[in-house]
Structure formats: structure tokens, C-alpha cells
């Protein structure tokens, strides 16, 4: 098991970029995929794409992120890759439906993005759990929900 106690930097850091690039040519770069919802954790068990277990424990002032470099030496690099964030698309029928949808999204602490006349909500768990929270809007045909990948 690999034990990680700090983030060394970001793969885009100029100082690291070159070394990582070199290792890539030798197929010596491994990735640890971390679900978006787990990136905020300071303690986490994960696995590299080559199957090695990684126990991550970070100091309170550090955080994981997409591209965080966990290991970098002459033999290999281990880098965090953020998992895919799924989004739910909510399409309100009218301005008043949009107003009500917006109220609920805020009240429910949903993480949102705006896309024209649609509201995108970061999905964490089953889509049906989101639909259930705004059941009257959905069943009344006032808001439509669809799933999409980023």
C-alpha cells in the first residue's frame, strides 16, 4: 500500500511538467481517479489505475484536485484525476416555474450552473432523489428533468 501524506504540486506546475512528460514516455505515470464528491476529503483510500492501493492523509491546509501530484521520482509519477461530474438538466416551462425551481434549488443547497433557460444541478446520488424534492413541479409538467454527462 502506498501512503501519501502531502500533495507535491500540480501536474501543470512548470517545475513538474517536464519530469512528468518524461515519465509519460516511459509509461511510468499512474492515475488515481477520485470522485468529485471525495476531492474535499483529507483522508481517503483509493487505487491507482495499475491497481495499487493508496492511503491518502493530507494536512489540513492541503487539498486534492484534478492534476494533484502525489508521487514524483525518477521511476514514476502518481497523479489525481477527478471523476466525472454528472449533471441534471432542469428545463422550466415558464418564468414563474423557473422562479420556483430556483427557490427550491437554493433551499435544498443544490450546486447549480446556469445554461440559457435551463438550470444544471450537480448530481450526487440517484436522479430520482432530486426529482422527488420538486415532485409537484415535475408531475405538473412545469419543469422537465433530464440526465446528462459533462
Amino acid at each position, binding site marked *: *500500500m502506498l*501512503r501519501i*501524506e*502531502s*500533495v*507535491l*504540486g500540480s501536474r501543470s506546475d512548470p*517545475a*513538474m511538467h517536464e*519530469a512528468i512528460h518524461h515519465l509519460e514516455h516511459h509509461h511510468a505515470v499512474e492515475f488515481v481517479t477520485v470522485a468529485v464528491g471525495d476531492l*474535499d*476529503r*483529507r*483522508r*481517503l*483510500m483509493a487505487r491507482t489505475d495499475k491497481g495499487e492501493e493508496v*492511503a491518502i*492523509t*493530507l*494536512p*489540513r*491546509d*492541503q487539498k486534492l484536485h484534478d492534476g494533484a*501530484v502525489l508521487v*514524483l*521520482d525518477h521511476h514514476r509519477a502518481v497523479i489525481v484525476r477527478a471523476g466525472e461530474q454528472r449533471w441534471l438538466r432542469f428545463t422550466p416551462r415558464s418564468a414563474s416555474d423557473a422562479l420556483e425551481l430556483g427557490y427550491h434549488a437554493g433551499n435544498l443547497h443544490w450546486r447549480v450552473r446556469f445554461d440559457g433557460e435551463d438550470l444544471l444541478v450537480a448530481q*450526487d*446520488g*440517484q436522479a430520482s*432523489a432530486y426529482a*422527488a424534492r420538486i415532485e409537484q413541479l415535475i408531475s405538473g409538467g412545469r419543469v422537465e428533468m433530464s440526465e446528462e454527462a459533462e
Partner: protein
Amino acid sequence: MDTRTSTHSPSPSRVGAARIGIGGPVGSGKTALIERLIPAFAARGVSLAIVTNDLVTAEDAERIRRSGLIDPARVAAVEAGACPHTVIREDPTLNIAAADDLEALFPDVELILIESGGDNLASTFSLDLVDWWMFVIDVAGGDDIPRKNGPGVLKCDLLVVNKTDLAPYVGVDLAAMAAQAATARAGRPMALTNCRSNEGVDAIADRIVSDVLFR
């Protein structure tokens, strides 16, 4: 402050104690579980400290300090005011400070348990405050609680269903309640406990030692 950076040596900032949240409705048995976990962690050689949150008193902290189970100085109280979820989610500053203080006072501490004030099923912990959290409900609260899809029940790392001893008295079918909870949580972990007679507590301590302390 040391600001050296090197690609080949670890950063100088220190990995602190693991922090675990314990949330759940009023009276579900959060403090009772802590009182059971203290000796369980002692038996596993885990150095512990505790932060409790109460609305406007330090009732739970006083209760744990008086229990004789742990050095009273290792128990800190945070007064949450009217809004118990705010201090564990939106603005956990007070709890972070309390945990930091305990770590400074007791540098050997490996694990800090943070008990939230009793709240509703929507309360969740910020991952800035804790690394992992459990949500304690009890069978007397009704076997329909897992079906109500409260964010606390759905999102916690471990759902604890406490007071299993009361199931026959409140007409709760434990197996059915557990099955519904498993469905609602898409199979994520759950534990059944009876803090009166210390059932199910060792399994929780073991899980925390392996899943959070990685040993």
C-alpha cells in the same frame, strides 16, 4: 512559515489527527455511542479527543467529562446557538478551532470525534471539518426514516441505527428497516447498535480504525 517547495521531498506541514463527525436527530444516541466508543478506541490503542456541540449549554461535554472514561481536558464544547447544522456545514470555524486547540494541547491525538447538536434529517457535515462522518438514527424514531431520503441518512459514510433493543416495543421490523436503509443508500455501509448493552459498537470502532486511520 516554511515555504520551501521541492518536487522530491514531502511538504513540511503536518498531517493532523483524523476528524470524524457524528450527526443525527435529537436523542438518537450520539452521546451514548461516544461513551461506548471511548473504551473501544482505548482498547485499540487510539489516542482520542472529543468535541461536542450543544445549542446553548455544554451539557453533553459535561456528561462525557464526568463519565470518568476520558481525561476531561480532552473534551471541548462548542455552543452552536440556534442553528446546529450551520456550525458543522456552512461555517464550521468554531468546530475547526476547537479541534485545532485539542490537537495543540494533546499532540499525540490520532482521532477527534465531533458530535453535532441534535438536528433534523437534512443535516450533513462539511468535509472541511471532518474526514468521515456517521449519522445516528434510532428505531424509536420510526422505521420509515430510511425511506424519507434525508440527506443525512443518504450521504453519511456510515448510517447507524441505534436502540435496536427498543424495536419490539415500538413495533419496528429491524430486518425490513435495515433493508430499506440499504436500498436508500445504494448499499453503502450501515450498522445496527444497542448502546445500552454495547452491541454493534466494536464493529464501528474496527471500521473507523481501518477506513479512517488506515491501520
